[in-house]
């Protein structure tokens, strides 16, 4: 144990004295999350929308006027029938269509409620969501005005519909993706680089000649990075809680458990890479091309998997990050418990065991 602690201490010296790795470890997560956070902003301005008014009465006119008066929207088309909705979207200019039902005002007066449909183009789910919220806000303020001094409250019921990407209705959240990328970067890339560095320096050989067991050597390399990854995950969650006011719906304990599981997956990958790569540079290239790119492109972090070609959809299944992002989104955004994500957890666990077994095997071969 004492041997082991000395090893870990030395590992922390390496990390804390190298400005470059310090930046990757602590600067990167913060910069990335802030960049993404502010780049994926909820501000919208002069968004083109189309109106489909089946009723054309006083109230609908009022609402349309209000929408057109707001700086968020500009109305670029009045369409006459349902069939036009699709063609208007296909032109690409229009991001939303607002459709008032027939006899809107009459329904409102007679039944106390009327329905308005907000149809948005969800290829950009973030914008789509914001648009529908803003339109809704304008309609509801109109309702408030109508209800002034009246006991019986009128209601306008908005029906939101997303087209082109219906299952991405919930806001596209970048936090799970960033967290995955950072953990992959810190755990897999940094570990593989730090192990291959010892190979390059020749110190690995000297350590292997010492009584320290290979497993202890690897554990000694890995433990500091587990600690740093946990700190990183915490920083990311705190930033998203306090800077971006993103609530975490599910259990924090479950979240912590799944995060540690993914950290171990990434570390196993890092060790695996270090058994293949002879130099730090190779380790970095393999990590970047083999791990980071798939994580960014194929995991569903930025590009929705459901809209990928079938081949890529199939490939995405072998990317651990995909499953972790599903788990993270489920816990953070939907607030589900373990019973909803046990399958994904099991897949991740299976992959982890597989990678660990493979790297132990590779490691042994190397020692031959």
């Amino acid at each position: 144990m004492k041997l082991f602690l000395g090893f870990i201490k030395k590992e922390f010296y390496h990390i804390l004295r190298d400005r470059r790795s310090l930046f990757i470890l602590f600067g990167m997560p913060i910069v990335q999350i802030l960049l993404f956070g502010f780049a994926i902003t909820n501000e919208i301005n002069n968004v083109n929308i189309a109106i489909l008014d089946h009723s054309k009465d006083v109230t609908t006119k009022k609402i349309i006027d209000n929408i057109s008066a707001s700086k968020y929207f500009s109305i670029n088309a009045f369409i006459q029938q349902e069939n036009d909705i699709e063609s208007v979207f296909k032109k690409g200019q229009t991001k939303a269509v607002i459709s008032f039902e027939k006899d809107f005002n009459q329904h409102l007066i007679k039944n106390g409620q009327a329905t308005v449909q907000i149809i948005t183009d969800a290829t950009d789910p973030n914008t789509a969501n914001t648009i529908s919220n803003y339109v809704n806000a304008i309609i509801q303020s109109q309702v408030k005005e109508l209800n002034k001094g009246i006991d019986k409250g009128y209601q306008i019921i908005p029906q939101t519909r997303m087209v082109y990407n219906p299952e991405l209705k919930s806001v596209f959240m970048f936090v799970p993706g960033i967290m995955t990328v950072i953990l992959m970067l810190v755990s897999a890339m940094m570990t593989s680089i730090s192990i291959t560095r010892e190979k390059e320096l020749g110190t690995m050989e000297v350590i292997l000649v010492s009584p320290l067991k290979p497993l202890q050597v690897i554990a000694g390399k890995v433990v500091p990075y587990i600690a740093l990854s946990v700190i990183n995950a915490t920083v990311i969650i705190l930033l998203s809680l306090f800077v971006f006011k993103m609530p975490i719906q599910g259990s924090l304990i479950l979240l912590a458990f799944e995060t540690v599981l993914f950290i171990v997956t990434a570390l196993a990958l890092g060790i695996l890479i270090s058994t293949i790569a002879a130099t730090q540079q190779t380790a970095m290239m393999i990590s970047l091309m083999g791990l980071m790119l798939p994580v960014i492109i194929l995991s569903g972090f930025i590009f929705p998997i459901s809209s990928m070609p079938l081949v890529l959809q199939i490939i995405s299944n072998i990317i651990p990050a995909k499953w972790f992002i599903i788990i993270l989104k489920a816990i953070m955004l939907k607030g589900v418990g373990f019973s909803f994500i046990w399958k994904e957890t099991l897949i991740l666990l299976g992959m982890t065991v597989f990678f660990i077994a493979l790297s132990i095997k590779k490691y042994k071969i190397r020692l031959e």
Partner: protein
Amino acid sequence: MERVIEVESLTKKFGAFTAVDSISFHVKKGEIFGFLGANGAGKTTAMKMLIGISHPTSGKATVAGFDVFTEAESIKKNIGYMSQKFALYDDLTVKENITFYGGIYGLSRAKIKIKTQQLIEELGLEDIANNMVGSLPLGWKQKLAFSVALLHNPKIVFLDEPTGGVDPITRRQFWEMIYKTANQGTTIFVTTHYMDEAEYCDRVSIMVNGNIEALDTPKNLKKQFSAHSMNDVFLKLARG
């Protein structure tokens, strides 16, 4: 004289290629044993089997009285190893390097402290004990690496081309350190391709294509091959 290394028909094959072909030799306690050979002759592979990081294909060998096949862990506690890359951490200070290597050999904290002090005084490193090793000249790194390999008082120390890249004066000083260590009873097993260094060894073995082609004192070898220097001996052997 006690034999600290005994090797009999030791062989290592990589697939169809035989890197070390049934070599036999022994090393006596306190001896400076030179292990020579051209690049690719198999000397590194042979040494790796003795220090327990490569498994022999067949044959027999004991190091410090322990079997290389079954007792590699015990061997590791009794040997020191200095790699040709010196294998020190540039981003750790002199003291931290000593502490780390002492630590992986299981030395107690108190012992490490004493040893560190002793070592720093012996090497005259007082002024730079807290400097990063990366800033030291190569010759000092070499001495430090050698001292670090001796921290746990091993019975045998393996030096893999320990004088690569340093100037003749520094090499000379380094050999003085080796002599001193050998006089204290530590066995030195050294690979080198500087033939003038071979003259400093008690006995020398020369490997060619996986076999030991010659093994004796430098004096006898020169007589046997009627050569003026070890360099001539080596050239005669290598040319076949």
